[in-house]
């Protein structure tokens, strides 16, 4: 998509696999919302297109104090909400205070380091930190720190702030490039161009180029693609990997594979005893390593992603800042696997179940392949498909042997994945029960480390330690999006955000 001659106007229709739940940046928690919220609510800073850094947003500039304990943000001139009312420093303070309130939603961990938000003057907001936080700048570009119109929210009916916010979320007014127009749940959501958006486009006039975006909810993969192929949609997300080749060959379509932070992995329960009281062979690191090297990642990539993915080289994706791996993590080595099993005393093998998300083709594919690959070790893997709630509940209670899952970063910083994957005090390292004091210490130190080199070193060591960790790293995969050839400038950044502000439709 050339930047030179963009065409303006038109409504882009985009097929989604599921509908949004609700449009409040603080109270919500699901990717279906997160990935589109930035179109409605702008943040002070914006993630860069490669997902690894930040760029100015509603704040035209920011300055981190030398001690790292405060940040001064300068608001851009003339910024307005989509209803035309000005965005004030009060709105910013109110929004950030709500976002960091531990009683509101589940994303406040991003703002955990903020001690207070103060309006210094109508154009300046100062964040005072409890401790230096290398991730906070990136955090300000995350959806939950989106800026909302304080007055409008508070004017909503409802007894509590939560009630008001929920009512507001049904017809939100935001600061992003698009404004909410209408929503038929389960069917379509219509966004229209925010006439007051600040950001200039390539032609010098404000973004977005499009007059609007219409999301259509099409849960069935085949149907979603048929709708693009028949020309009824301009684009669709979540193309099944099995269809990528076929769509690439279609001259009318543009099969985009956007780089992502998405990783697919397995998590083992490493507690010595299972919930049932039985001994857990997976507590033995040698067993885990044996299973790891027995799993042929390339074969899995071939089967599941039809060659679209790449093997993981660390527990985090190579698109995540401070990623430190080289080459395939645990390359396939059947002989070594057998040896390791023997060392561990499980020459004869054993059996255990794996939880996969019911109906998820990728997870079932992975599990089926693993089942076959591990059979050579005498390991019998029993596949149990469960729904998401069951999966999470059992996971959280430590009532599992192994599960499959995938992860994408929400913030351009490695701390998010590290805290959830390895740092025991947060959620017991993915509820696996893996508790490595060295990892924990390194992580805690890295959370306050402002020197990028030192922090990089800490992360390199964490990633090394994690090789004895509770996961089975599998593959990284891009976001497969199919677009009509006439669509230009649409972007899904590695953090998942769908960016429509730069998209345009060729007439």
């Amino acid at each position: 998509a050339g930047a030179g001659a963009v065409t303006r106007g038109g409504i882009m229709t985009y097929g989604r696999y599921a509908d949004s739940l609700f449009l409040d940046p603080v109270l919500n928690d699901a990717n279906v919302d997160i990935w589109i919220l930035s179109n409605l609510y702008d943040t002070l800073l914006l993630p860069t297109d490669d997902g690894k850094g930040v760029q100015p947003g509603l704040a035209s500039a920011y300055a981190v104090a030398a001690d790292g304990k405060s940040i001064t943000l300068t608001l851009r001139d003339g910024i307005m909400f989509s209803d035309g009312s000005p965005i004030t420093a009060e709105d910013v303070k109110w929004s950030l205070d709500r976002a960091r309130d531990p009683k509101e939603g589940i994303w406040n961990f991003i703002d955990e380091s903020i001690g207070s938000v103060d309006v210094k003057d109508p154009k300046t907001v100062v964040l005072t930190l409890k401790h230096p936080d290398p991730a906070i700048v990136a955090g300000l570009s995350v959806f939950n720190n989106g800026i909302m119109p304080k007055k409008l929210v508070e004017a909503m009916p409802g007894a509590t702030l939560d009630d008001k916010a929920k009512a507001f979320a049904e017809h939100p007014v935001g600061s992003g490039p698009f404004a909410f127009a209408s929503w038929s749940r389960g069917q379509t959501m219509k966004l229209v161009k925010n006439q007051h958006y600040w950001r200039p486009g390539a032609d010098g006039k404000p973004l977005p180029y499009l007059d609007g975006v219409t999301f259509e909810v099409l849960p069935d993969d085949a149907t979603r693609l048929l709708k693009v192929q028949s020309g009824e949609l301009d684009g669709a997300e979540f193309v099944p990997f099995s269809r990528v080749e076929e769509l690439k060959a279609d001259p009318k379509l543009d099969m985009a594979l956007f780089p992502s932070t998405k990783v697919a992995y397995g998590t083992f329960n490493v507690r010595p005893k299972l919930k049932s009281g039985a001994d857990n062979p997976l507590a033995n690191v040698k067993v885990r390593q044996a299973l790891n090297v027995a799993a042929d990642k390339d074969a899995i990539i071939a089967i599941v992603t039809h060659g679209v993915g790449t093997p993981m080289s660390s527990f985090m994706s190579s698109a995540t800042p401070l990623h430190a791996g080289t080459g395939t993590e645990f390359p396939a080595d059947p002989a070594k696997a057998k040896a390791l099993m023997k060392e561990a005393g499980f020459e004869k093998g054993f059996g255990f179940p794996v939880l996969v998300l019911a109906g998820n083709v990728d997870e079932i594919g992975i599990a089926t392949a693993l089942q076959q690959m591990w059979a050579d070790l005498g390991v019998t893997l029993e596949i149990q498909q469960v729904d998401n709630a069951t999966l999470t509940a059992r996971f959280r209670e430590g009532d599992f042997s192994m599960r499959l899952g995938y992860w994408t970063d929400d913030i351009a910083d490695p701390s998010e994945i590290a805290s959830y994957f390895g740092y025991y005090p947060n959620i017991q390292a993915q509820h696996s029960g893996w508790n490595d004091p060295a990892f924990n210490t390194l992580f805690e130190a890295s959370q306050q480390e402002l020197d990028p080199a030192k922090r990089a070193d800490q992360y390199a060591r964490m990633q090394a330690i994690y090789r004895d960790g509770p996961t089975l790293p599998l593959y990284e995969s891009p976001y497969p999006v199919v677009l009509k050839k006439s669509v230009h400038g649409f972007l899904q950044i590695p953090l998942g955000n769908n960016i429509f502000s730069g998209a345009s439709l060729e007439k």
Partner: protein
Amino acid sequence: MVPTLVFILVVTFVLVRLLPGDPLSAIGGDHVTDAQVAQARAAYGLDQPLFAQFLLYVRRVVTGDLGRSIVVQVPVWSLVGERLPPTMLLSGMAVAIGVGLAVPLAFASALRRGRATDLAIRAGAQVGLSMPVFYIGLVLLTVFSAHLRWFPVGGYGDGWGDRVYHLFLPALTLGVSLAAVLMRSLRAAIVDVLGAEYVDFARAKGLPTRVILLRHVLRNALISTLALLGPTVGSLLGGAVITESVFAIPGVGRLMIESIYGRDYPVIQGLTLSLAVTVSLAFLVTDLIQASLDPRVAR
């Protein structure tokens, strides 16, 4: 009807709470800490004893308040109100198509009993019965929407005409298996009725064949087949779950699955209740139609 509804309400209430996990485990995913879970449970009153929760729920239902969805945070009433009409329209059209297909086929089959037409129709019905709904749907979509472009690929449309147009293929999908079921029963009924003495009497009266078939045979044959229609509505809703996914129709079938997966207790309960009422109404309507066709059950 009321005792049935109460029974269903209690069963649903207990059942959904037996499900592992809760609304928060469904939506929070990997990001939620134990403290956050506890906090949210308290906020929704899920930490209360089950019985207390039930009393509270019943008290609210009696006043017409079905509560608010935990997952999408809208009142259950409006959610159901939005999602029920597409499913009703879909089912209605499916019934119309099913009956529309079944009647002529049943006649053709019954009148040419044992001959090639009959065998072909019955074999077709068997295929219709044996095909999974999602497969029929995808085949129809591929052929009529993607290749021939006669119909839109899924969706619900705006305005009545457009909606009927959008729902035609999904209704056909459901209608095919419905037609197969109805055809079989109607064929048997027609064969029966053709043997009835009043058909002989009608012929003895010198009536034209068309009058005999439509006025005497069809009407009587429909009566017994209609009895089948009520229960079919229930299974139609089951089939709708998958059809709605394949054709991207914002109906209650999909909402039900989503709510179960999301453990959205208020929505599941509200939906079950409204579906039960709908099905009961469907039974009532079939009873009424039956009564209008059959004076013997009236009075």
